[in-house]
């Protein structure tokens, strides 16, 4: 067997280079470590060392040739006892022979069907398997009225009682009981060993939390607001979301990053941003964004138990809102399952988080006008319950999405894409994505209102897809 010497990649970005100089000629015997050639790229000049032993049978690429593609055969070595006739037999055009192939496939490969035969959108001929509406709690369960704030606190306290590895850290979480009083009472019950006030460094304590998760604990990291978590995003995305993958499944990162997300009231541009779509794009993260107190509680308990990093997006305005919460010893809501808040037949309204406020108001008003809206609360954004949306839209044939985030690459855009590819034939009208306006949040109260989604807009959009 002859040995093919391939054009080496001298850097991750290199696609081609100049074969500047051959340091050997045909007939030379070489051994491992000999410098056989010099290669030039736009970045550097490098020496190519031989790894194998042999006799240079043929210099395929002449000295001084520019634009030599990575992985092209540049020379052929003869092994012991071979003569030059072995070269013809081995001189295949592509360098895939004896040498291990590069991880990346050459992009000019003619057999790559991805270019000439894109996957067709598969119009779903049948509805996805109908999922029986399962009650989220047993019939006859006593309900108690709780704010989202209390529900979140209870979720953490219950999980901390259940598992000694769970602890909370963040700014103001202990002595001050939380900047928004979400950790009220936790310090008293669990001591400063498990409820930890940190120096003011989001990046720092996000990283410490990730390390603690590597070290076998289950941290809950509270950001005073996700606006401040921008400083910590490297640890969230590069460390928490990547390590399981990059350790071949060995080192997981069970951690919850939680805190208020999106606009509050009159806190201006740097403090009023919705990161739902940002985090939902990252493989390795799970993302929850509850609306009701029951979902806040049930999802946060699931998030704390989840072996993966979970982004838990709360909302400052919702903190004080009251809901019925089942009075159960251990109530959880599975991550990745949407909730149908209201059955309807004419149009599907899809929302999550505080967007549900406008959506439910709009559904009431639409009912008064004789339009029956089905309202879906996604609750989890990654994984996203596409089946719930598809089932509903295949029934109503119309869809409006509602969120406070920005319009470009929004969650609504993603829903539209799913519907286009999997329910195209079921749509009787284009899907409308309602979002916040494409601007930084204004500080003035009247402008702030205008920059967010309004109930009027939801009503208007729903009527328009119903051609009313």
């Amino acid at each position: 067997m002859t040995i093919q010497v391939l054009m080496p990649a001298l850097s991750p970005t290199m696609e081609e280079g100049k074969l500047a100089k051959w340091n050997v000629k045909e007939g030379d015997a070489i051994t491992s470590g000999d410098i056989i050639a010099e290669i030039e790229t736009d970045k550097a000049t490098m020496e190519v060392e031989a790894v194998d032993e042999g006799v240079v049978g043929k210099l395929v690429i002449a000295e001084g040739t520019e634009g030599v593609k990575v992985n092209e055969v540049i020379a052929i070595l003869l092994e012991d006892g071979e003569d030059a006739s072995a070269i013809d037999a081995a001189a295949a055009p592509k360098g895939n022979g004896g040498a291990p192939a590069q991880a990346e496939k050459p992009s000019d490969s003619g057999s790559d069907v991805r270019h000439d035969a894109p996957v067709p959108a598969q119009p779903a001929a049948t509805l996805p398997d109908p999922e029986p509406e399962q009650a989220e709690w047993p019939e006859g369960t006593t309900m108690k009225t709780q704010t989202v704030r209390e529900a979140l606190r209870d979720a953490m306290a219950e999980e901390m009682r259940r598992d000694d590895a769970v602890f909370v850290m963040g700014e103001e979480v202990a002595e001050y009981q939380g900047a928004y009083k979400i950790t009220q009472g936790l310090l008293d019950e669990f001591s400063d060993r498990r409820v930890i006030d940190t120096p003011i460094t989001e990046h720092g304590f996000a990283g410490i939390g990730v390390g603690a998760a590597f070290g076998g604990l289950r941290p809950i990291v509270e950001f005073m607001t996700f606006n401040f978590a921008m400083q910590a995003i490297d640890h969230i995305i590069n460390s928490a979301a990547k390590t399981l993958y990059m350790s071949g499944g060995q080192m997981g990162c069970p951690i919850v990053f939680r805190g208020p997300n999106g606009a509050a009231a009159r806190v201006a541009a740097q403090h009023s941003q919705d990161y739902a779509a940002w985090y939902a794009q990252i493989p390795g993260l799970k993302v929850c964004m509850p609306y009701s107190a029951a979902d806040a509680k049930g999802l946060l308990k699931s998030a704390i138990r989840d072996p993966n990093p979970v982004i838990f997006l709360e909302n400052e305005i919702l903190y004080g809102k009251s809901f019925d919460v089942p009075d159960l010893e251990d109530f959880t809501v599975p991550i990745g399952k949407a909730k149908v808040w209201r059955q309807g037949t004419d149009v599907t309204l899809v929302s999550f988080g505080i967007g549900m406020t406008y959506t439910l108001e709009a559904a009431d008003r639409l009912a008064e006008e004789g339009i029956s809206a089905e309202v879906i609360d996604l609750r989890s954004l990654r994984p996203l319950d596409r089946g719930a949306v598809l089932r509903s839209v295949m029934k109503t044939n119309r869809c409006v999405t509602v969120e406070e985030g920005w319009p470009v690459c929004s969650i609504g855009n993603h829903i539209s894409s799913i519907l286009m590819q999997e329910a195209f034939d079921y749509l009787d009208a284009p899907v409308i994505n309602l979002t916040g306006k494409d601007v930084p949040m204004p500080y003035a109260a009247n402008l702030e209102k205008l920059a967010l989604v309004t109930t009027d807009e939801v009503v208007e959009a729903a009527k328009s897809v119903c051609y009313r």
Partner: protein
Amino acid sequence: MTILLAEPDPAFEPFRLLDRDGSLRDEAAVEPDIAMVEEMHEAMLRARRVDERLLSLQRRGDLGTFAPVKGQEAAQIGSISCIGDEDWFVPSFREMAAALWRGQSLVDLLVATAGWNEGLATRQDARNLPPAIPVASQLPHAVGIAHAGRLRGEESVVLTYFGDGATSEGDFHEALNFASVLNAPVVFFCQNNGWAISTPRARQTGSRTLCQKAHAYGISAAQVDGNDLLAVRAVTREAVRRAREEGRPSMIEALTYRMEVHTTADDPTRYRDDDEVEKWRARDPINRVQALLKARDQIDDEMIAALESQIEDEINKAWDDAKEQIRELEDGVPDAIFDHVFREPTAELDRQRDLFAKLERRDDG
């Protein structure tokens, strides 16, 4: 005139036990444990030869981008040899010598450097983190791990590595600040190898030393000759003991030199003088420890040659095994790219995996 502003007072001199000719300095009050020195010498030599082979395999196109360790073997082996299995090794991305000491197999190393995460899948209970590519992000992790150990009632210590450039990152400062506030048992081991890619140490910070930065956080620090195996080991042992027994962090700045490229993607001849490289070549840490062993009649050139040849055989065998594993991985079902995104795959990932598998089948046909 009264001077109200005090000048910085970086009273650090690099600690040294072994002179370049292999003779022990007066500071070395006791004779070194020669058996241990021999073991460390072998580890250094193995790392050097593996490094060289990785480079030639990378140049040939068989391996991906990596950061060579050449010149920093004493800094890594002298320090990593001070911690045990119950302790944690938290590397940056240049700690191949330390990783081998911690038990990473040559085959795994080669498979990983060829781009396969399978090579990183070491023992579940091994307290070794995978390399961290974002500069300095491993330092807060080290503090978190150390704090978790304390909360769990362990006496484990975390040894974490970083370079001179990393001391300019916020992560470095945040990690030191947290370690001090939390009394986290961490040893911050800085390999000051003179260059952050093309940025020399002098352009990295106005501080005279890197270790003086630790003082600002209330953390003890030492500067050590990083090419002096015995000095590195002595300083690190003290830092590890202090972390374990007193729960106190410390920082060590090891003065060493990156004799090779930063990574295989750059060309140092464009930014540093050959004279400088030559100067450091004369301070090669392996030569120094060999001089010590020769002076003690523990080793001679013949024994070194035999050891080199044994290491070459090990490497050849490992590369043969790695090639086989890589070929199997390449021929295997590539939908393994969907593994380990989450602990359990989501329905959406399964859907994407199925779609991908269909495409692959069409590719083949």
